[in-house]
């Protein structure tokens, strides 16, 4: 394949001596512009090593040559994040200082709160309540209009701050749905009767006699929290048993399970874990999901 370099007779240029089936390669010099750019890039590369962080170095532990420019991408990112936080702080300060009502009446603060609330929700709340706040069994849907502990801005804000049955927070929302069978307060039959009575609110009871017996038990025990009309009491986080929303399920077996063994869902207190401005943003965001109730009344 290779033979001694030769002159190409057509162009008068030396060949490289490479020959492929009669096709020879001319030994043309590299184009000047290309060559100079190649040399320039070598120089630039060396300058780059001196100027920027480049080589890994072993000095008892791994480090790297820092370069004389003091350049650090990580420091840039940190500074950038710092700048963003400082830019936000102006508005976060206002959100912290102003009452919730004032924040939602300020178009700019509202816009910031909705965006910040949505982001914080995704980071902190979506794990239990779902990314669309649609909830799961035992974790309430925040879009609907049924609220255990109240659905006004201030109710939601308080729930977020102090949590539900969160022992570390002494202001936490606290109530007990006992296990009435497990704690031997009611017998199996009595539990079953109460379940029949609850189902009768939804026209699903089958045994009229059981409903009547269950009503007696309900009025003696359950009405203390759920109210005589079974419509619940938000001060105690007692759900309305007559509406279409069920946290754990509205079929006979699930209601029986609830009455027999009790329920005690927990929500963490976020005060101290999140900035107060973020908690307020979350309250505003959750309140806007469709089920938010008006203050007062």
């Amino acid at each position, binding site marked *: 394949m290779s033979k001694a370099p030769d002159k190409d007779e*057509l*162009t008068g240029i030396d060949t490289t001596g490479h020959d492929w089936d009669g096709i020879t390669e001319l030994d043309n010099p590299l184009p000047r512009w290309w060559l100079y750019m190649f040399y320039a890039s070598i120089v630039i590369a060396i300058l780059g090593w001196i100027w920027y962080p480049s080589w890994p170095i072993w000095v008892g532990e791994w480090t790297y040559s820092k370069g004389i420019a003091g350049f650090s991408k990580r420091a840039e990112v940190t500074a950038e994040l710092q700048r963003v936080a400082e830019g936000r702080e102006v508005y976060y300060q206002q959100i912290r200082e102003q009452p919730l009502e004032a924040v*939602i009446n300020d178009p700019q603060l*509202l816009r910031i709160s*909705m965006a910040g609330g949505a982001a914080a929700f995704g980071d902190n709340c979506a794990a239990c309540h*779902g*990314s*669309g*706040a*649609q909830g799961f069994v035992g974790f309430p*849907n925040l*879009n*609907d*209009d*049924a609220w255990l502990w109240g659905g006004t801005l201030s109710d939601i804000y308080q729930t977020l701050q102090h949590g539900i049955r969160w022992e570390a927070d002494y202001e936490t929302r606290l109530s007990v749905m006992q296990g009435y069978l497990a704690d031997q307060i009611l017998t199996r039959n009595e539990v079953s009767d109460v379940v029949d009575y609850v189902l009768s609110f939804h026209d699903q009871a089958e045994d009229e006699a059981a409903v009547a017996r269950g009503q007696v038990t309900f009025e003696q025990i359950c009405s203390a929290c759920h109210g005589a009309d079974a419509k619940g009491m938000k001060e105690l986080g007692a759900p*309305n048993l007559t*509406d*279409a*929303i069920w946290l754990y399920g509205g079929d006979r077996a699930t209601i029986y399970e609830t009455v027999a063994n009790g329920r005690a869902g927990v929500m963490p207190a976020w005060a101290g874990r999140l900035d107060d401005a973020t908690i307020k943003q979350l309250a*505003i965001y959750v*309140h*806007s*999901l*469709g*089920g*938010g109730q008006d203050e007062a009344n």
Partner: protein
Amino acid sequence: MAGAAGTPLPPQPNKAAPLYQKRIKIYPKRVSGLFRNVKWVVMLITLGIYYITPWLRWDRGPSAPDQAVLLDLPNRRFYIFFIEIWPQEIYYLTGLLILSALALFLVTSLFGRVWCGYACPQTVWTDLFIWVERLVQGDRNKRMRLDKAPWRLEKIAKKSITHGIWLVISVATGGAWVFYFADAPTLLSDLLQGDAPMAAYIAIAALSFTTYSLGGLMREQVCTYMCPWPRIQGAMFDADTYLVSYKADRGEPRGPHKQGESWEGRGDCIDCKACVTVCPVGIDIRDGPQLECIQCALCVDACNEIMDRVDRPRGLIDYETLAMPQARAEGRETRPKLLRGRTIIYGLSILLTMAIMAYGLLTRSDLDLSVQQDRNPLYVLLSDGGVRNGYQLKIINKAHEERNFIIAIKGLDGYELSRPNHQGPVDVVSVGPDAQKTIRLYVALPKEGLNASRFRDGEAQIRIMLRQEDDQASGDLGDSARPVLASQNIGFRTPPQR
């Protein structure tokens, strides 16, 4: 072609050509005549359009700029006289480009490279730069002598004046470009005070550089080597396309001619090379159609002048189709065939494109509604057994005034609207002038409405509409009487039936 016309090609030396063709500098000679005058007029018109357009004003009311042609990139609006284009309507510009391309195809198939020869910016600016060159350094022969002369004061002065004027023209060209992208008077004062955005200075610098190098230094090389258009055009010519051609049958055999000599037995071409010296791309038209030829027809003017002088009929070089010399050889009459397959197709395509664009522009709405349905959650079960769906409405008001619309829904009975963090009537939405607004809309349907027959597989098709607001005079019109200005069909979902 040259062979077919009977001209023998000059013998090629039997030596391999170098791979790189060094540029042979061209010194086009001054010429006068019909086509030269046409070119001056076209130059005046095209340069006039380019420099004056940004300064034309067009009143659009207080909320929009008053510049007739403004490509407002930061605010994402294109203003072209009475047309205002939003980013989602950029296809109007596509239509304009298609129209330009088709017009170019049509003209090219009829008259060859008239775009290249008269109207192309490369030709216009090169022409202008050659004019400057001639003004300062004199005509062809003087320029050639000057280039050969040693670098003395006169040469240095003339060359620097030429390049200086070129630079001024280049900066003015780049400068005019940026005025299309911002309010021209404001930008001009900003530019002069050094307050204009950096992008403006960079654009001016870049365009000044390209104008100077393309028009002053590279010239015909741009057309011959850089521009793809000459290569494409070969596919658009046919035997009936008018091209600048040398009538070889009349001109050959060529040769010098003394006054008084007989014209018998010889051609009309006296080989004076007038056609070659005026050529801005440095070719000999007598070699037949060539890739380099931009068909500026200056050789036609040059030859006609000579023909007048030697008292022979004009038109030895002329606009001619390829079919004409053949017809002459066969003794036939030829008539130009302007209407033929390709010109008819190009013409119809132009009319069709114009019709589609006119229809689009005339029926263009100044209001856009785009509705998206929440997908997470798909629906929300309410405590009374009813169902709520959430929607995001994006409303674009292209009018130059604030407008109020009434939201109404067709296809649901007894629905209830709500909007988070909204004050005032829930069904009234107001959108600012020339603005876009996004609102969230919740539509709740009580339990009784869910059994309607319109629900199929738990979903109903509804129509979200924007109706015109009641005016003061007529009071509350009621939904049915208010005209629907925009609407969109969308679903309303319910939980699966158990």
